[in-house]
């Protein structure tokens, strides 16, 4: 079982030093996620959910502790190695969509592929496939400003999936959506999790989202205080 862990975090601490105070955002997190699992991280504002996602995904460094993703210790990687690793193995979905406004939908989706060194023609084909997966083939040439919030978030999901990552990190993926669009997006994530067997770590406030995952990690004050396994899923 230990060998199938795709995420293994041990004693992870994260502190922020401002000029006046030190904020301990994570205080000794131990966590493991198995391959293909869909995990929700929940908790009140400021409990460290997003910080946890950031340090696990290598977007931010850890102050103390170890983070091993798919056997690779990312806490020891250089910025360059970590960026490369992200481009090849990870996908991201953010609350504010965070699409590049000057690129069209298909260009946004193919961007990480190109960064990972995929050939232009392959990248375009895979981007179109990813858009088809989220039912947005028709919207491929449109720029973000020409799409609805739900559509933009689906483009973000397509972008996260285009390089067929081992792990998809999602930070409040439904936070900016109405309930109908939110339900659609979460169903899509669940479907993809099942079809592609990718690991999903989702930070959310929404219990409805959490219920659709395999496990809910509840956080408070920078620590995981509770783990709930959702048997139905």
């Amino acid at each position, binding site marked *: 079982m230990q060998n199938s862990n795709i995420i293994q975090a041990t004693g992870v601490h994260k502190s922020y030093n*401002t000029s006046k105070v030190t904020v301990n955002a994570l205080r000794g997190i131990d966590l493991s996620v198995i391959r293909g699992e869909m995990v929700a991280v929940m908790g009140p504002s400021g409990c460290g959910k997003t910080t946890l996602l950031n340090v696990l995904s290598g977007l*931010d460094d850890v102050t103390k502790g170890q983070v091993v993703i798919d056997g690779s210790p990312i806490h020891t990687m250089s910025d360059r190695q970590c960026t490369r690793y992200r481009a090849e193995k990870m996908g991201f979905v*953010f609350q504010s969509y965070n699409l590049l406004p000057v690129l069209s939908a298909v260009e946004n989706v193919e961007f990480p592929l190109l960064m990972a060194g995929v050939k232009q023609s392959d990248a375009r084909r895979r981007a179109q496939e990813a858009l088809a997966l989220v039912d947005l083939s028709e919207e491929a040439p449109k720029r973000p400003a020409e799409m609805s919030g739900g559509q933009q978030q689906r483009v973000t999901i397509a972008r996260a999936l285009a390089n067929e990552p081992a792990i998809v990190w999602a930070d409040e993926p439904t936070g900016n959506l109405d309930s109908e669009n939110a339900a659609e997006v979460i169903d899509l994530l669940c479907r993809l999790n099942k079809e592609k067997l990718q690991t999903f770590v989702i930070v959310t406030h929404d219990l409805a989202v959490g219920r659709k995952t395999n496990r809910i990690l509840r956080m408070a004050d920078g620590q995981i205080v509770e783990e709930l396994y959702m048997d139905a899923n």
Partner: protein
Amino acid sequence: MEKLFGIPIDQLMVALLIIFSLGIAVMIVVVMRNRVIFKLAVRNAPRRRAQAILIVMGLMLATMLFSASLTTGDTLTHSIRVQALQEIGEIDVVIEAEARQTSGQPSYYDEAFFHTVRDGLVDVSEVAGIAPLITEVAPVIVPDAGLNEARVNILGYAEQWMSGFDRLEDKQGGILSLSDLAHGQVYISNMLAEELVVSPGDTVYSYLGSVPTVLEVVGLYEKGANPSGDFSLVMPLPQLQELTGNENKINSIIITNQGDSVQGARHTDTVLSRLEPILEAGTLEATPVKQDALDDADEAGSAFSTIFLIFGQFSIAAGILLIFLIFVMLAAERKSELGITRAVGAQRGHIVRMFAFEGAIYALVAAVIGSLLGVAAGWGMVRIIAIAFGQADLELTFAFNWQSLVLAYTMGTVLTFVVVMISSWRVSRLNIVRAIRDIPEPTVSRKSIRGLILAILLPVAGILLTVAGLQGEQLAMFMLGVSLVIIGVPLLARRFGLPDRAAFTIAGLGVVAWWFLPADTLESVLPEMQQGMEMFFLSGIMLVVGAVWTVIYNSDILLGAVVRIFGRIRGLPPVLKTAISYPMQNRFRTGITLTMFSLVVFTLVVMAFIINSMTVIFEDTERLSGGFDIRANTSYANPIPEIRTALQKSEEVELDDFQAISSLNGAPVKVKQEGTDQEFTDFYLQGVDSSYTENITYKFDVIAAGYDSQQDIWQTLQEEPGTAVVSAYLVPTKQSYEMGGPTLDFRLEGFYIEDETIPEVFIQVQDPFTGVEQRLRVIGVLNQEAFYASGILTSQETVNSLFSQPVPPLSYMFQLKDSVDAETTAKALEATFVEHGMQAEVMAEEIRENASASVMINNLLQGFMGLGLLVGIAALGVIAARSVVERRKQIGVLRALGFQKSMVQFSFLLESSFVSLLGIGLGVALGAGLSVQIIDAMKESFAGLTYQVPWVNVVVVVIIAYGASLLTTYLPARQAAKIYPAEALRFE
């Protein structure tokens, strides 16, 4: 123009083109390998059009300054070339006797030598023509009309040899042939005919000796009489030989090469090398007049371009800061996009490339506009210079060449691109999480390793520079080294707990105090230090950086003070607080903008002080004229035997009107400093009489040991043969402010003008005819105020003894009694000595004309430096536009809390006013402060200088700078006021 900063333009252009092309090639390769990053850059560029325009404006300024400087240089080069070519026409090489007559005119030699030269060059295909020639200069008068021209070029041609040279042409293009002239008949130039009001058939008198020659004017020519100026007269060679008493003799052989008047110069080296064996044995020498004229023109143009580029340095520095600021702000605007780009796999290098591509697009466009606008600015500058040169003979014709345009373009693009690369590297160093969430970057931890290394490196580098400066006796290096120590030590102390405010304030104030250290304090400790123009630039930069640092790190005190002063005005405190708090919160961008404003205003104020002081110097005409009122020159062909006797007989002037009448003789000699490895060089030695030494008021910068007073020096010069005084320009100085221009062939060495006394220095003077030598002991170096004493001055007896015969005086200086009018007397002197070709000038008037030209050029330089203000203004525009976007939400909150639209607008205007006024204030204060030092230093050369505040000039600078900054921020402020609170509050 052939050279810039001493580097041949062609080589500079090739080097820049190689760098430019390499840059473009690298970029194309990178684009091919990573098109999506290029796509991002291309699409980002036009996202905000107004901002893109501001960016292009900011980026184009450096190129514009380059282009304007080069255009001015090109115009000068072209104009001087045109004038030179008008005077020498097709002539490429002139062969004259090595030794000139004491009058300075070429000596005569056997006409047969012309045939020797001709035979020697018969097989040289590059030669198009060879001709014998006599050139003389003499006064020409029309007695009946009372009109005269003191210096007329009189040319004697042998027409049968003139093929290949210019022909004499009248206004209609008709050819005038010398064979049509009978004895006593001449052709004269149209300009001379106009001056003397004569036409064909009239008679003129020429004084080629003491007896006038009557000449009948047969025709007027427009061009073709070369080499000569505007006023010339032409006759057949035999006739001029007879008139000058030089039968079968000539004083020049002229050679023209194949090709037009400019192209012919290409063959100069070939012709000179063929002439070498022919001239080897004799006493004649060949001068490449065409090539020399073209070189002189290029040197003058290059010197002008260099001056403008040197004075434009501050604006260029401000422009570099603007480019940096623009890119940092662009990055701030796109922070979350950059974060997500990094999050999904883009490396830092990709971010650098993205900004570099975008910067390159802006730079390529901006450089095109900048170089073209620079040509326009250059045209404007040329118009002003033309007015300043109005008194001189030079007629300026606007010109620029494509090399300069390419040079300005590539210089601008390469400079911009380098700055863009550095800024891109800086902006790429972002924290992904903070960028995505648009959280401000935390202040850099004082405990970071990088910070520690920097804190240690700075004082260490400072100490090394200081030592290097001391060893090399270079003041700039020494001052900079100590400055780095002053900055480094508090920053190092910061690592051990010294608060930021204290560290930066100590560093800032320390630097300001160090650069304000009075020059004589340093000089008393380190008398050997040398300095140049770089000190002006360095002191400006360091003072401004120090002052801005101090202000930025003490902003809260400033804020408190402003609120206390203006806070009583009803409704003002909230607006005031927001207006000042924002810029003080963004220390980096406010600091850079303040630096830009302060730098430019600083230079303008210093320039205003210098102009003002120079004006004061020129107003003291008596000091510059040495106490004399009129100076006069006479013709060498007919010198005045005894001027006092002549004046006694004169009906036009009274001898009693004169307080003193001094005469100067002189002759061309060869000189070198004894005891050095110098070669003999041509020089003009002047001899003064006792009246001159008794009445002259010129002072000395440095005198030989053993003399009690300045008057002692003048007395010794007169009484002790073999002594001399020299001009300041012949002595090396520790303060070298040379900016190109012709180099001196002869200069003394072994001591500095700043020394206490002159050591034993002797000049060896040689009579070029006889080779007789004499030693002249240098006993004084004249002050720069000695406007009318140039070169080497000795006594007339010394000059006479060198030549073993009396050398007649050709120059005179007159001191008038108080009640006598100088202008009337000058005219009367000219009339009295008309046959001697006397040209008399009122010295005060001449000085004033010089002053107005000099002040105009200085004003132009100030205007040119003022172009840098555009940089500061553009920076304020960029910041204001960015602030509106950045603070949209906060504006919404303010509006929700009760801020009126007008208060928002006012707050924005107040904010930019605060930054611009602070920058202007710092610039004025620092400029005025440094001017005290500069004027003190200048006093050593110009004792009459006084420190006077140029109020009008400073007020104009302040009004223009502030007014323009208000105008730039008006639109963004209005835009901010129009923001709807509800919309702003939900804005993401």
